[in-house]
Each structure stands twice: as structure tokens, then as C-alpha cells.
């Protein structure tokens, strides 16, 4: 409790720090092909498994590819998989949850049972199953990641709508001639948006981990495409023999991205909470 009282004062700084990191990662993702010092796919056995140096900042991997360039290029793929998956889950989940909460009845029951079904599976195993069945392409990783995240949005949106559905300002909106679609879109939805945005930020980190995790176990992006999960998997073979740079640097960037989105989520939650303004 004592600690909690200081949170409001600490959070903004951590939040803005994480926001800077996210923006930096996004920029790197956009400009990576132009700033990468080497070709991420070019193999050169002569320089295989060299430790970090002035030419290869993060060292080289087993076939002599530049780890630094590969980490940069992978940023674009990993972030866009996560962002697309979260956007998909957000759109489908928010719409389904809002409708479910507002209309209730059999629609609510049907959507509710569907979420229950999805959530009954261990989510990562479900994602593995989807990718294994549909084939491991980037699109399928996006769909799998989106599907396992949809229930969270449905539940958050539904709960927020239930709280506000009979609020006086919604009744007032109905009285001045707003039919159900307008009430939903222009009066309810904007008011349930803040918690959903917070959820989306927290979800980004989970989606990044999920995509990397799928690739790590060989069910995601196929080598030699640079991707953080694959790179960590490649490096795992060299942990014992001491070539630490192969797995450490992609792992660090992955951890940094996950942490940044998590802290940004907490920061956003405080930002939207009127009590803490």
C-alpha cells in the first residue's frame, strides 16, 4: 500500500521512457533496410561465429551472417506481425464485445460461449495448433495471434458497455433520436475506448512474444528470414560452447520491446484515469 501511493508520481516518467523506446523501435523497423550495415542474408563461412567487433557490432552467427543487421531487419517483421494481429483482435473483439454487452440475450450468450471455448485452451498451444494446421506462413501467424487475443477485447468491451448501457447519458442519447447503431458507435464506444487502448498496448508485448515463440519452436517464420525468435533459437545451440552474442542480442531487443509495451500500457492506464490527473 505504501508503495502504491508513489506509483502515480513514478509512472509518467517510466511511461514516457517506454514511449520513446517504442517510437525508436518503430523507426528502426521502418528504415532498417537502409541503415543495416550488411546484407542480413549474406553468408560468409570465413567469418562464422566471430564475437562482436567494429565491423560486426553484434558478432556473426554460425554461417557468418551479421547479427546486428539481422536484428535490425527483424524489428520490422516482428513489430508488424504483432501490430497487425493486435489491430485485428482489437477491431473484431471490440465490435463483438460492444454488441454483446449492448444487446444481451442470445447474441451475448453466443459470443460469450465462443470466448469461453477459445479461452478453455492453453492459448499458446491453440496458436501452435492453428499454425500447424494452416501452414506456417506470416499471415497464419498473424491470424493465430489475433484469434488467441480476441477474447480479452470481447470481455473488456462487454464489461465496459454493461456498466454504461443504462447510464443516464445513454438514455438521453436515445431520447434525442439516436437508434441503437448510433448509440453504440457515437455514445457508448468512445467511452469504452480508453480501457481497450490500454489493453491493446499490454497485448502488443504478448503478441510479440507469441510470434517470436512460434518461430522459436519452428512453427513460425521460416529461416533464413531474420526474426528474433528464430535468431534466439539459432543461438540456443551455442549457449554451452560460449558464443553468447548469437542469442543474447536478439533476446535483449525482444525483451526490451516487450517491456516497453508493458510499461507503456501501465502509463496509458494512469493517463486515462481521471482520478490520477
Amino acid at each position: 500500500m505504501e508503495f502504491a501511493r508513489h506509483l502515480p508520481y513514478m509512472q509518467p516518467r517510466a511511461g514516457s521512457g517506454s514511449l520513446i523506446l517504442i517510437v525508436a523501435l518503430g523507426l528502426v523497423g521502418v528504415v532498417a533496410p537502409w541503415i543495416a550495415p550488411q546484407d542480413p542474408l549474406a553468408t560468409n563461412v570465413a567469418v562464422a561465429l566471430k564475437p562482436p567487433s567494429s565491423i560486426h557490432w553484434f558478432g556473426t552467427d554460425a554461417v557468418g551472417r551479421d547479427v546486428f543487421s539481422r536484428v535490425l531487419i527483424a524489428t520490422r517483421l516482428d513489430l508488424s506481425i504483432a501490430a497487425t494481429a493486435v489491430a485485428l483482435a482489437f477491431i473484431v473483439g471490440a465490435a463483438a464485445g460492444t454488441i454483446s454487452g449492448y444487446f444481451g440475450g442470445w447474441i451475448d450468450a453466443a459470443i460469450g460461449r465462443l470466448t469461453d471455448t477459445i479461452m478453455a485452451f492453453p492459448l499458446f498451444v491453440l496458436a501452435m495448433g492453428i499454425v500447424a494446421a494452416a501452414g506456417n506462413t506470416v499471415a497464419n501467424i498473424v491470424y493465430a495471434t489475433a484469434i488467441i487475443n480476441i477474447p480479452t477485447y470481447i470481455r473488456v468491451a462487454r464489461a465496459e458497455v454493461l456498466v454504461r448501457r443504462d447510464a443516464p447519458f445513454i438514455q438521453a442519447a436515445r431520447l434525442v433520436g439516436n437508434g441503437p447503431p448510433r448509440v453504440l458507435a457515437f455514445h457508448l464506444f468512445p467511452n469504452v475506448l480508453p480501457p481497450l487502448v490500454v489493453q491493446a498496448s499490454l497485448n502488443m508485448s504478448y503478441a510479440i512474444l507469441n510470434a517470436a515463440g512460434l518461430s522459436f519452436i519452428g512453427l513460425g517464420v521460416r529461416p533464413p528470414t531474420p526474426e528474433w525468435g528464430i535468431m534466439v533459437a539459432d543461438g540456443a545451440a551455442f549457449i554451452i560452447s560460449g558464443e553468447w552474442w548469437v542469442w543474447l542480442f536478439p533476446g535483449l531487443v525482444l525483451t526490451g520491446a516487450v517491456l516497453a509495451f508493458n510499461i507503456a500500457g501501465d502509463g496509458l492506464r494512469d493517463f486515462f484515469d481521471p482520478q490520477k490527473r
Partner: protein
Amino acid sequence: MMSEIGAIEPLLEIEGLCVNIASRRGNVAAVRNVSLSVAPGEILGVVGESGSGKSVTALAVIGILPAAACVAQGRVRFAGRALDLTGRHGGDRDGLAIIFQNPRAALNPIRPVGRQLVDALRVHSSLSMGQATARAVELLKQVRIREPVRRFWSYPFELSGGMCQRVMIAIALACEPRLLIADEPTTGLDVTTQKAIIDLIVALAARRGMATVLITHDLALAGERCSRLAVMQGGQVVEIGATAEVLSRPREPYTRSLIAATPRADQGARPPESRTLGGLVPKPLLLVEGLCRDYRLRNAGGTAARAWARLSHPGEARRIDIVRAVDNVTFRLSAGESVGLVGESGSGKSTLAALIVRLIDPSAGSILFRGKDIGAIRARDAARAPHRREIQMVFQDPSASLNPRHTAFAAIAEPIRRLGPLAGNRQLDIVVRELAEMVELAPALLTRLPHQLSGGEKARVGIARAIALRPSLLVLDEPTASLDVRVQAVILDLLAKLRSEFELTYLFVSHDLAVVRRICDRVLVMRAGCIVESGMTEQLLSAPTHPYTKELVAAIPHAVVSREHCHTAPTG
């Protein structure tokens, strides 16, 4: 028990209390140098508008100030002991109890109210489960909760706001406190409940020597019940003294303006305006016949809870699954009339209002508006029904009824955009500005969001929105209940002005007879879903026939307010 010395010494002594609240724009002095004392058995009234520092003083005494507030100066002694003012979690406050304004927020939403009462009893005494349960039912009965055994197992959301407050009062009284701080305890309750609860507090205070601090904005209530009054403004006590003294010879201009703004049941009635033309009875604008609305109670308490209740109280535990909120109501409204609908909370008056504006569907009966049965249109389709723009509503809570993300301008423009004649943005701007002018809202405020407006300003936005389409029937659901008394007086004047200007018909839902008397030609009295009496306002209030109406009229607080000394009173 209390010693002889304790009976003479004040029980609570506040000396030079200053409380600062930190905000983004620096420190705000919420309480400035307040000194008060309360003797055992005494009832001290603390009166003032919202923001005058009444509640902050109470929170400081009870030791639960919000994190942003801190006591800068001053001492508080309770029963001869100095209280620690730096803590924020109560502590060392045995014998002090507080009741808050928003009872629903103070109750645990997922625990039956009876269990919460038992919890409080068992923490503060060594009663067994059975004894505590019996005592809890007894306490619920004392705060006038009907069917206390069934209500024991009710969850807070199943009870009306008034009932929740009764439960809160029962919990506060359960621990037999020596000092009770009641922070607006009866605000939002109907007059009969208000009377019953204040009677209960007064009786307890007298019997047990319990001291009471009654914080209220209702000067009439405080004037009737308190031995001494403290008037607060801007964080300071501006006037303090014996009640009769303060009311008959107010020294401060602020006190005078408060007294002037207090509606009194024994004056201020408007002459009834007859709108019948040439002796013709006007065609009814609204004709409600045999209107009913049922609510199904879903499983009151768990199965085990019901079985327990049935075993312990075989007579009362009969399960009733359907509650008839509105029961066979028939009445008519003529064009241009102003009709009051009064009754206590839970009497079905708000449900009736919601039925008429077609927010909910009736279970039986018809609602004829200009001869057309609008009750047959489903509530879901009512948004686009042709009568929509003719019937509008002003809501009870001006804050909750405005979309927190829409500006005042958007709120007022909304009905015109949806239902009004198509017009360009320029014209819309002109119309909205005209409406703002009509409700005396400064045009500069139109760009603000609801949380940037005061209660009175929000109420004006709500009224402007309701009259934007020039409706013929305006349903007002306790439009002034949540406003300060001076703002309330101004809004009532505004409503009276608008009515004569636009020939509106008002259905004025209220629990406050003094307010109803000021604005209504005719009154319908509602109880337990039925209309028990109706008649012209003057006649009904001066010679009520139904016992319930008599009770209502008798319960209006009558402070001895002398007007002779307040001629120069400014109004807010």
C-alpha cells in the same frame, strides 16, 4: 459509560483546523481555520454549498482524507483524547461513525446487505452469528426497511438508493457510536424517509447521549433538527450560533442569501393558471390508462439463503418473483399544464417517467399521446418514432446525463442534428447559441466538457438539450435534486419562465413537496406503484385526504425562517 465531567466537556473539539489539497495548480486551502465543538447529545448542523469544506472537515476528523489532502494546522480532540490527523486509514477512532452521501458506493456490491451488517456487528462486539443476525434484522427494521428478512439477503444493486442509505445508516448505528457524523445523509431521499431517519438519529442521540454532526445543504432540515448551526463558505465557518438565533437574525449576507433561497412549503405558491379557453375542457395531451410495469426478481439470495430465511421466519419468507413497479396507473395531462408526480423513492415514479418517454416498455396498459398509442411502439424503435421530438426529458443527475466526451455545444446540438430540420453548421451554431441564451448559459461555456462545468451549468445544458426541439411535453425527473439550494432556486425560476414562454406541459417528478408547490398546478401522489391521490396543488397540500399524503405533507421540514430580515438578500 460517560463520566460526569465528560457530560459537560465537549465530546469533539476542533481547533483551528486547516486542510490543504494539492492539485496541479498548487495547493488549495479547502478548510481554513475551522473551530467547532460538539457536546454529548447535541446535534450540530453544518450548512453550506458544495465546495464549502464541510465534507473535507468531516473526513479530516474521521481520518480518511484523500491522498492529495493534508492537515496543515489544527488539533482535534475526541472524548478528551487528541486524534492523530496524519494517518489516512481511520485508526484510533472507536466511538466515531460516519455516514456518506453516496450509499451505493459505500456498500460492497457482491455481498448481501444483511451480511455486511452482521460483519460490522461481529467486528465491534462479541455477538454470536445467530444473535448478530437477529440484531441485524432488528436494525434493518429500525431504519424502516420493509420486509427486513427478505432484504437481509438483497444485494445493493437490488435496492433503491434510499434503501441503500438506510442500510448504511443501520451499519453506522450498529456499532453504537458516541459521535455520528452524517454527511448529507438524507440527500436524495424522499421526505418521509428523511423524516424517519432523522427522527431515528435524534431519538438515538437523546437516548444514548450520542452527539451528532449533521452536514447538509438543506437549511430547512438543519434548522428544524439542530440545536446549533455552523454556516460554512469557502472553507471557513462564517457564522455559528444557536439555530433560532442564526435563522432569525443572520449576521452574514451569505447566510441571508441561503435563507432566502430555501423553498418553504408554507409560501411561494403560484396562483393556478387556468388555460381552459372559453370554458372548454382542453383535449388531453397525454392520456395514460391502466399502465403497468413488472420486474422479475431474479433469485433473491442463494438457494441456501432462501431456505435459511424460510426456516427462521416462516411467515415472511414467501418468495415473490415479480415486482410490480407501476401498478394500473391512469391519469391525464392537458396541454399547458404543470403536474407534479410525488412519492418516496421506490414508489415507481421514475419508472413511470421512463415509460412515458418510452425508454422502457410497459407490461400492460396504454399511453395515448395526442390520441395515438405510443405505448405500442417498442422502446428500441422509439428513437425514430414520429412523436419522439414532442416528448423530451430532463434527467435527475445533470453530470451523469451528459456524455463525458461531448462538449456542451455537442450535447445541445445533438437533438437538432438527429431530429431537427436539416440545417447547415452556421444555422446550427445560431440555434444552439439562442438555446444557451434561453437557459442563461454563457456562450463561452459551450466549448467546455461536462467535467469543466458546475452543477448548475450542467443542469442548464440538460434543460437546453431537452427544449431544443420545442417539445410539447417535458418530463422532468427530479431536475433540481442534486443541486445546491441557491442554484435550485434559480433553475426553478428558469423552468417556470420557459414554461410560460413556450407553452410547455410539465410532468414534474419530485420527492420535494416544497419544490413541487412552487412549480406545479396539479399533483399526483404515488405510492407502491399506484396513484393514491391527486388534486390541485394548494388544495392537496393544505387538506390532504389520503393518510400517505398527510404523512408526506407533515414530513416537510419547517425551519422557523424569518423573512423580515432578509429583504436585501442577493440571489445566486
